[in-house]
């Protein structure tokens, strides 16, 4: 039985290039109308500045009862818009969705918590907002408190809660909903590792009890562990659906084609200056397991070629690797050597089992006489390292900037003999 069937749903947004939507005011609306009334040319130019943007385009699918659907896609692929439509927060522009069953959607942890109210009051408020009735909340009250571990702070306003407690309480309430269909957006991005584990366990219980689950996450390990089927969204379209393993592989291979290579053929138009010009940058991964994406095990080589325009220049290269959030993971340099005019090639080996999963950015500098930077290419390359785990039944984000395999061992040194 289909519990959700979507037929050709689309969602259009109008992007206003003219001015930010925030500052929209009646005056603007009036003056626009006047401009349009009195001047034809203006109307045309205004028209161009408004752009249609289809956050979702012609998406159709059906979901059966008991399906656990993982939804993957890049930022801006339309995942969140889809969840908003399914949870009735916004209307689709065209198309329609039929849903059979009570839906609980968790797009944010602790939706509607009021900071001034106590934990106890917020359980009732949030529960009601998520669609539980009072008797249901009363029945699961103790279980919620226990799950969140906030017994001592029940009568404290939640504004005094630590962010961890806040999130735990929010998730605990949502986890005790008993809807037929549950929609969850990226809630595992918050909370500590232990709590994430608890959440995933709870979600597995939900799905094993025959309820339907829709789960959006960037955490592919969690999706693989929880979901039997997956949807892959790109640019507002549902481009693939099927078994989770298959979808995750497709998704990862698309992601990794990002900017692994950049090159310029013509010396004169290549980036650089009158001392050096860049010919190419590339990352050459040695894929493991016949995959076509980089994961934490993959060794890779970073190669760069540039034209030196000055004879007898003493040059060296300096490479910075940044995490996506801007922290420098490392900086390495080559030795300084004299070069003649012509093409110079450099290569850096990054071993496998070294970087943690995440997105990385490489910047490259050409340095003259070990002191003056003659050319700096920021964000020359970007790449993603995907997670990979073996024999670990824990799906939280692996902490740390790097994830080296060090010699770390454990052995039994004494046996206690029981008699």
């Amino acid at each position, binding site marked *: 039985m289909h519990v959700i069937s979507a037929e050709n749903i689309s969602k259009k*947004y109008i992007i206003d290039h003219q001015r930010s*939507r925030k500052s*929209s*005011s*009646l*005056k603007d*609306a009036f003056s626009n109308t006047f401009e349009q009334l009195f001047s034809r040319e203006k109307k045309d130019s205004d028209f161009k500045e408004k752009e249609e943007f289809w956050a979702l385009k012609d998406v159709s699918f059906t979901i059966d009862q008991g399906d656990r659907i993982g939804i993957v896609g890049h930022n801006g692929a339309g995942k969140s818009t889809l969840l*908003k*439509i*399914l*949870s*009735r*927060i*916004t*209307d*689709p*522009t*065209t*198309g*329609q*969705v*039929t*849903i*059979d*069953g*009570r*839906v609980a*959607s968790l*797009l*944010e942890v602790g*939706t*509607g918590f*009021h900071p*001034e*109210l106590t934990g106890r*009051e917020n359980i*009732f*408020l949030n529960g*009601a*907002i*998520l*669609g539980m*009735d*009072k008797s249901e909340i009363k029945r699961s009250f103790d279980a919620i408190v226990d799950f969140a571990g906030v017994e001592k702070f029940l009568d404290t*306003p939640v504004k005094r809660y630590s962010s961890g407690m806040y999130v735990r309480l929010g998730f605990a309430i949502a986890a005790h909903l008993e809807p*037929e269909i549950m929609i969850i957006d990226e809630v595992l991005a918050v909370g500590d590792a232990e709590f994430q584990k608890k959440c995933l366990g709870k979600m597995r219980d939900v799905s094993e009890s025959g309820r339907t689950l829709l789960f959006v996450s960037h955490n592919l390990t969690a999706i693989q562990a929880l979901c039997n089927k997956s949807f892959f969204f790109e640019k507002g379209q549902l481009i693939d659906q099927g078994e989770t393993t298959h979808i995750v592989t497709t998704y990862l291979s698309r992601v990794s084609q990002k900017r692994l290579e950049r090159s310029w053929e013509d010396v004169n138009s290549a980036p650089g200056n009158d001392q050096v010009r860049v010919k190419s940058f590339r990352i050459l991964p040695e894929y493991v397991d016949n995959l076509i994406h980089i994961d934490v095990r993959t060794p890779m080589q970073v190669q760069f070629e540039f034209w030196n325009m000055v004879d007898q220049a003493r040059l060296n290269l300096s490479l910075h690797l940044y995490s996506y959030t801007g922290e420098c993971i490392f900086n390495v340099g080559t030795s300084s050597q004299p070069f003649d005019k012509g093409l110079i090639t450099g290569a850096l080996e990054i071993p496998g089992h070294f970087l943690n999963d995440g997105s990385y950015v490489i910047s490259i500098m050409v340095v003259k006489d070990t002191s003056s930077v003659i050319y700096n290419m920021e964000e020359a390359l970007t790449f993603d390292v995907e997670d990979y785990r073996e024999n670990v039944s824990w799906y939280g984000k692996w902490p740390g900037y790097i994830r080296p395999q060090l010699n770390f061992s454990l052995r039994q040194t004494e046996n206690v003999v029981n008699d």
Partner: protein
Amino acid sequence: MSYRITIKAGGSEKDYWKDLWRNRQLLWILAKRDISVRYKQTLLGIAWSVIRPLMTMLVMAVVFSFIARLPGDPGIPYPLMILGGLTIWTFFSNAFGQVSNSVLINSNLVSKVYFPRLFMPLSAVSVSFIDFLISLVLFICLSFYYNYPPSINIIFLPFFIVLTFITSMGFGLFFAVINVRFRDIAQLVPFIIQVGMYICPIAYSSRLVEGKWFYKFYIMNPVVGIVDGFKWCLLGDNAYFDPNSLYSTLIISILALLLSVMYFRKKENTFVDNI
């Protein structure tokens, strides 16, 4: 119970009102939230809801009976006439102001979870209604103090309270919807309330206006009928009340409520795109 729903463009549920009724507990909880949040972290707590209207009444009574002495209705203690108008006006203006802000201040809810959107203005009205009840009790106490107890007309009071509810919702809902897109409304509403206080018979009696050339425009203001009617209920037949002023109240307010509920329903599913 089956929960089949269909989501499509521009269409709100066909059993919209049933849905509203099914979720009525949430309305109660939202209203309770708004009330209980107000006096958190105060020393006097809930006592404020009595102290505040009492202070306002005292200040108004002093100002209007000793300083700005406008002629009142004969035979009615002057402070009572002022306070009668003030009580119902405060209900109307609070409800109107809070309804027009209701969607915006709940934007965190609107953008993250579905619930019948009409609960936001409804809970705003309930909060002002609680305040009103407290002021009403205070007013009745004062009327005994002035030895001028409410007349038998008080049996019509619920009618005027319902009218106030309809009028404040009717106008407030419009503004609540427009406020989502255009924040100008937040600036405009306090101004409307301020002007309203002067064009309604709060600090004076409609008797002053009767017979003037603009009287027929004056009584077109739907709130005039409400304020005069309310005073008539509590202060008896000595209070000036022109039943003709109720025509406009009934027509304008009911029409406004119908139209604005339609407008609200049409726009409510796209609030989140503009908030």
